[in-house]
């Protein structure tokens, strides 16, 4: 089966700071790929490259067989990239409802009527229907994170990319997010999921990629990755006795 | 031939004055990220100060300039404390609009007090011709401007690179949080930067008053020059200001030479726009480097 998204020899540096040196991985249809790695490993940078806000120094990104590195940011959204931001960046002076609608319209090119319908569905799905008319700026962190997911989902993207959607949440909140992501898989989405909360990686993903020192160190089933020496060494930092 | 040589020389010398006009604005932008629309008016305000001291109070020129500088520093401090600090965190537009309001207030107050008449600060060298050859002449005022501008810019470069306070200013503009962690009282540093900008505004105000005439409404005219200089040179770059000034001066004079007298000012503007289009951040844009 062809991967929906393929990243080859990706490298990026900021001045002298070679954040990504050579990263390769694939994302398959209807798969949840977890990405872990130490702070500053370049996980967010990777997402930024995929969505187009950063230009890589070299490498190739193929989406459904098409090289997309030359494609504009907004066009990529319309091609089917949906993401969340590590620090939520919802549109604060718009209601949750409008946030989702805006995303549906811009990324999905629907009419307002369709977008409204979609927004209602989504708000229900992420459990935010009772806060639909609240300004996004006044939502609590969990709700903001949920809204991030909702916004990303709105235009029916092909690939969803979550950047620490569970970060900063309590345990029960985390399981709530976990449920949402799992049910997204059932709906057929392909997902890239960056998270530091190991639980989510273990329970929510199909495969886990460890990103460190600018390389894709290992990419395998979650349990295998988390038990590997590499993870101990570069990520967890707890040496086995 | 005479006209071409004269145009080039005048263009460069005029550029010195333009650099002096722009440098204060550049500092404020580079350090605080504040687009100070009132900069031109503050300049004219200082010119009026120098004028009052020399004419109405009979103080000699140098002392007048020094007193004016002190006054401008105080005004800059108040401006910083009560207006800029109140809005600087609210984003670019509110800060810009506050300075916009201030500019209107200053020019109208000046008009109420001094009337709309044009003034100039007469000094001995205003009408002197220091070099007079067959091919070109150099005006005393222009030469003074140029030398003062070079001195100001050299002094600023020295201050910013070699003194503790200068380094603190650069550090603050580089990374405010880290500067605070070094023990730099960054709010105070903002005030110092504003004070330095005021000193340069005052000097520029004097130079303008000595070279041209000014009236309460002149601020806008010089604001656009300041903008032009800073925009061409790159906001926040001191050396860029000098470059920007000379380029603008030359663009005007050569514009007049090649496209006719009437196009002198227009050439300057068009050149600014061309540079902004090609390099939307200016030539030496580097906010990190003073």
């Amino acid at each position: 089966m062809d991967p929906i998204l393929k990243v080859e020899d990706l490298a990026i540096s900021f001045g002298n700071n070679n954040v990504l040196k050579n990263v390769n991985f694939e994302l398959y249809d209807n798969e949840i790929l977890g990405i872990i790695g130490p702070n500053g490993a370049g996980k967010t940078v990777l997402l930024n490259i995929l969505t187009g806000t950063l230009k890589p120094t070299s490498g190739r990104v193929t989406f459904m067989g098409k090289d997309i590195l030359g494609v504009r940011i907004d066009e990529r959204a319309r091609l089917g990239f949906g993401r969340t931001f590590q620090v939520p960046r919802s549109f604060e002076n718009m209601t949750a409802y409008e946030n989702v609608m805006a995303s549906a319209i811009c990324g999905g090119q629907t009419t307002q009527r369709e977008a409204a319908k979609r927004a209602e569905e989504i708000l229900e799905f992420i459990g935010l229907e009772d806060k639909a008319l609240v300004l996004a700026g006044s939502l609590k962190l969990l709700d903001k994170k949920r809204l991030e997911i909702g916004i990303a989902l709105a235009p029916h993207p092909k690939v969803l990319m979550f950047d620490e959607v569970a970060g900063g949440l309590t345990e029960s909140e985390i399981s709530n997010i976990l449920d949402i992501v799992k049910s997204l898989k059932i709906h057929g989405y392909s997902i890239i999921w960056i998270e530091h909360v190991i639980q989510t990686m273990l329970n929510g993903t199909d495969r886990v990629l460890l990103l460190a020192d600018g390389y894709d160190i290992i990419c395998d089933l979650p349990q295998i990755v988390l038990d590997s020496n590499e993870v101990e060494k570069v990520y967890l930092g707890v040496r086995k006795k | 031939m005479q006209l071409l040589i004269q145009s080039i020389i005048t263009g460069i010398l005029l550029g010195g004055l333009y650099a002096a006009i722009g440098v204060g604005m550049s500092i404020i932008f580079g350090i605080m990220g504040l687009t100070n629309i009132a900069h031109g008016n503050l300049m004219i305000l200082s010119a009026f100060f120098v004028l009052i001291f020399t004419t109405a109070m009979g103080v000699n020129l140098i002392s007048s300039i020094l007193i004016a500088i002190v006054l401008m520093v105080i005004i800059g401090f108040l401006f910083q404390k009560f207006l800029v600090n109140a809005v600087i965190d609210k984003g670019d537009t509110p800060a810009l609009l506050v300075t916009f309001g201030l500019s209107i207030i200053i020019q109208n107050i000046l008009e109420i007090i001094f009337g709309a008449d044009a003034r100039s600060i007469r000094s001995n060298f205003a009408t002197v011709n220091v070099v007079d050859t067959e091919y070109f002449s150099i005006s005393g005022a222009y030469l003074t401007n140029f030398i003062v501008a070079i001195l100001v810019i050299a002094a600023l470069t020295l201050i910013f690179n070699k003194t503790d306070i200068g380094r603190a200013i650069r550090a603050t503009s580089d990374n405010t949080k880290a500067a605070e962690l070094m023990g730099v009282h960054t709010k105070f540093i903002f005030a110092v930067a504003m004070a330095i900008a005021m000193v340069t505004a005052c000097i520029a105000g004097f130079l303008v008053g000595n070279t041209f005439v000014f009236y309460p409404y002149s601020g806008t005219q010089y604001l656009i020059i300041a903008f032009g200089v800073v925009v061409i040179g790159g906001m926040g770059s001191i050396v860029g200001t000098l470059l920007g000034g000379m380029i603008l001066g030359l663009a005007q004079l050569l514009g007049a030479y090649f496209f006719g007298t009437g196009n002198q000012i227009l050439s300057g503007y068009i050149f600014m726009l061309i540079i902004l289009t090609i390099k939307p951040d200016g030539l030496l844009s580097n906010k990190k480097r003073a």
Partner: protein
Amino acid sequence: GNGEGDIATGGEAGEKSEIVIGYVGPFTGPLSVFTVAFDWVTEKALEEINADGGIYIEAYDKKLPVRVIKGDSESNATKASEIASKFVLDHNVDILAASWTPETSAPVSAVAERYSKPCLISNSPADSWLEGGPFKWSYGLMFYVESMMASYIDGLDKLDTNKKVGFLFDSEVDGVTFSALLKKMLPERGYEIVDPGRFAMATTDYTNIITQLKEAECDIVMGNQILPDFTTAWQQFKQLSYVPKAMVIGKAIAYGSDVVALGGDLGVGLITEIHWDRSFPYTSSLLGLSCEEFASLWESENNSQYPATSLGYDLALFEVLDIALNNCKDLESATIRDQIAAVSYEGIYGKLSFDENNVMNIPIVAGQWLEGETWDYEPIVIGPGNFPIIPAQDPIILPGTTRQ
């Protein structure tokens, strides 16, 4: 006092208690120098007009005092238009008046035409004002640019020069009109023109123009600028070591104080237009004073040199209104308008009446500023041009002229 508008409560026609004149002028802004005499002249004129209760109007069978309300155009056309509208619509003035340069006079005339209000404009070049015509309601006490140029050339003819004239005209109304006309007139009188072209107002660097004129060795430079611009330009002439034998400059140096403001002895020998002078051989119809007496009255009461340009025009405005209103049987707009049109006047500007363009052709002469006895600078008339009745003297060549 800067025109705190004295607001009239516009009454009904039946209970008319005064005649209100709404005057719009540049009381602040770059042109405010031209309104310095207005308050003083208004006071003098109204004192006389209202001396025994005002002007008798048959329709009301009583004397109505004349009152003037002032509006400040801030030397800005938009503002002038707004205020004129306010005067007509809100204050219900009987007559609109305005003065000084097209920025104020043109929009005020436009308002008068729209609302059918009689309107009297003083001191604006007639030529550009007339482009807004033909006027049905507006009348002008104005000079024709041709008269002004004729007087200049008249004066220049008396000088020993190489007859090469360099232009220093900006691209504002006057600069464009004057230079265009001079291009026709000067060659006819044997002068050669060097024209670097029109330039924007508020230009600060004149190197290009000056160097061109210097290279062409012009003995005469003619221009028209506002004072600040001219101050800068004239300084730069000196800085670049180029002083022509004659420097003719319109607008900038209307007053002795302007010439002083140039600084040093920069003002000596400059030639400019004179709109009114104490040496004019006329007597005011309203005040009964000769020009010399009127000028002296100002100087004794104000302790400053008489502001020649405004003094004459401001008084003439009231002289004409006085005559017109005294002929009015009622205060209908049309009546007032017709009486203004009919004014045949003999006053501070001699004997005049309105021509077919609604313009009263006010004398204008060329003068030269010389160091004076009472004041720093005093003007002499050097070129009476179209008004030979005005006595004239011989001009001098600029001191500091570098070429022999």
